């Protein structure tokens, strides 16, 4: 047994080395730059908190991320809930359709949304044809467009996480509730929903943390007016050469995400999501 453990540990060595060289080392370098560029000290972090522009970027990022998270989790819960109630064949087709967007690049998806949402786009065209509206709606190149694009990107992840959680719930509990006279709505609110909390918590955490670092979608669909942290960092690296700002902001983002994940993992709901359940 001990021998086996040692071999197993050895087998992880190549992967660990790759991760250390290509991931941990560059991150440490960023960390190092943030306290040495242009001169050693914590001045960059001080400047970060004093910088009103950075504050506004953070607020925008939080606003977009929270909106995206709420919409994504609610919509994904509905889809996942529907999928677990489908027949096996239909469920396979539905899961396939959920997976399709995974194989399409984030760039292509952003441009597709532009095609759909722009002033002479598919959606505005259809609404004007049918006389619902008389002049095109501003659906893209603003906060709305960014949110639509991000929710679409996040939904497959959230659906799969929720689907895994929901399919693990023991259906006999619903039968018991029904036999005790509960109406369908009561069964949903008092049985399904509480039992889904671990899945909901996991999906919320995942989508929120992922949203915080989003780059491509806000840059393309926001047309410069929805400036989020990742894009701001990218501009400071490539366009303005403000590496002090870029590296300290990156480090802060990493730290905050780390704290959020750490804190969330201590909540009972999330712990439950990771506890091994007996297989049925």
């Amino acid at each position: 047994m001990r021998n086996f453990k040692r071999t197993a540990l050895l087998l992880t060595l190549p992967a660990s080395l790759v991760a250390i060289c290509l991931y941990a080392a560059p991150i440490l370098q960023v960390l190092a730059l943030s306290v040495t560029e242009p001169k050693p000290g914590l001045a960059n972090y001080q400047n970060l908190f004093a910088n009103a522009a950075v504050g506004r970027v953070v607020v925008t990022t939080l606003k977009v991320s929270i909106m995206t998270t709420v919409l994504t989790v609610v919509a994904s819960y509905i889809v996942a809930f529907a999928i677990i109630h489908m027949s096996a064949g239909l469920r396979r087709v539905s899961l396939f359709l959920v997976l399709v967007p995974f194989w399409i690049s984030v760039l292509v998806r952003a441009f597709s949304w532009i095609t759909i949402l722009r002033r002479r786009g598919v959606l505005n065209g259809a609404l004007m044809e049918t006389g619902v509206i008389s002049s095109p709606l501003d659906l893209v190149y603003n906060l709305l467009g960014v949110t639509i694009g991000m929710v679409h990107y996040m939904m497959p992840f959230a659906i799969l996480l929720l689907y895994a959680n929901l399919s693990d719930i023991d259906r006999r509990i619903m039968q018991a509730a029904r036999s005790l006279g509960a109406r369908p709505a009561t069964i949903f609110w008092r049985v399904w929903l509480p039992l889904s909390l671990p899945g909901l918590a996991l999906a919320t955490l995942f989508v929120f943390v992922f949203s915080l670092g989003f780059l491509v979608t806000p840059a393309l669909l926001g047309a410069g007016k929805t400036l989020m942290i990742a894009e701001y960092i990218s501009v400071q690296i490539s366009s303005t050469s403000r590496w002090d700002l870029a590296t300290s902001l990156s480090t802060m983002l990493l730290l905050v995400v780390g704290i959020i994940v750490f804190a969330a993992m201590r909540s009972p709901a999330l712990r439950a999501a990771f506890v091994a359940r007996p297989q049925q």
Partner: protein
Amino acid sequence: MTISHFAQDAAQIALDKLNRGEIDRRSFLTALGGLGLVAAFKPGVAMADASEIVVCNWGGAAADAFAKAYGDPFTKKSGMKVVIDGAGPAVGTIRAMVESGKVIWDATDGGMIDSLTLGKGNLVEKIDYSIVDKSQVPEAFAGEYGISNYVYSNVLAYDAEATKGVAPTGWADFFDTAKFPGKRTMCKWIQGQLEFVLMADGVKPADLYPLDVDRAFKKLKPMLGDIIFWEGGAQTQQLFREGEVVMGNIWHTRANLLNKEKPDQFKWIWEQNILSASAWSVPKGNPAGKKVFEFINSTLDPAGQLVLLQLMGNGPSNPKTLALMSPQDAAVNPTTKENAASQIMLNPAYYAEHETELQNKYLDFISS
């Protein structure tokens, strides 16, 4: 910085033309050469060697055979090979190279503003005007640390169908939503943006610098809801094609392409256009030494600069090129006398000093 955005964009235009069969491969490669751009993205090819010239540019767009096509003429003349490295001569990269003493580039296509920034940091050689013929370009294009090989302009382009045939007459019309209803586009990179806003607000060209940022923001503020900010040249064409905007501040090369697509619909005016110059710089301790200046001198040749104009629309830095132009060439060239009548020139010294701070202020302003 913006120069790199423009250089990449110009290469993209050439690549699109090549793909559509409008130009042949050889012309394409020649054009890239004129831009100082090349394809072969081979880290490691750029080895320090005194028998060759290593040019660094923004790479990307093209095929690997370019070094041959572009290097041959110069090689014939000088016996030296030309190797192109498309890694992108960012100021930070050059700084790291020079400070570590491992310089692998001889000439970098970084623009007039970068050349000043680099010069201030003591990171580049002075241009050796005993070898480079200064008289080939106007005085403003021959800086201490950089010399221009092409120019480009920010112009006011408009959709004549949307304006019902009425042409705008200057930047003031960009703000006249009563006369020209509809959305506008301008660039999210700062160069050439506040200048036009201030001119629209009545600031005289001579009084533009230092830029009155607060005044420009005040003028721009009520318009923000109607503006879509672009970050790459192709996007500007897209916005016009899709009818998303009725007018905008875009590069003259892209305005020209739009006009070729639909001559009656997409037009632009040269009034108050804003001219920018590219520039070659030479990192301190470059491997080929003084030889690089012979190469730089050869890129100032009018024949090559004309090819560049015809293929991509980049204006020549050498005024002698004007004499070689057909009327069609001259019409799309920002340095033609009529086109330059009310032109202003971007002030590189001002940007070298303030761009970073200005860019961040501007991003904060447009996103709040």
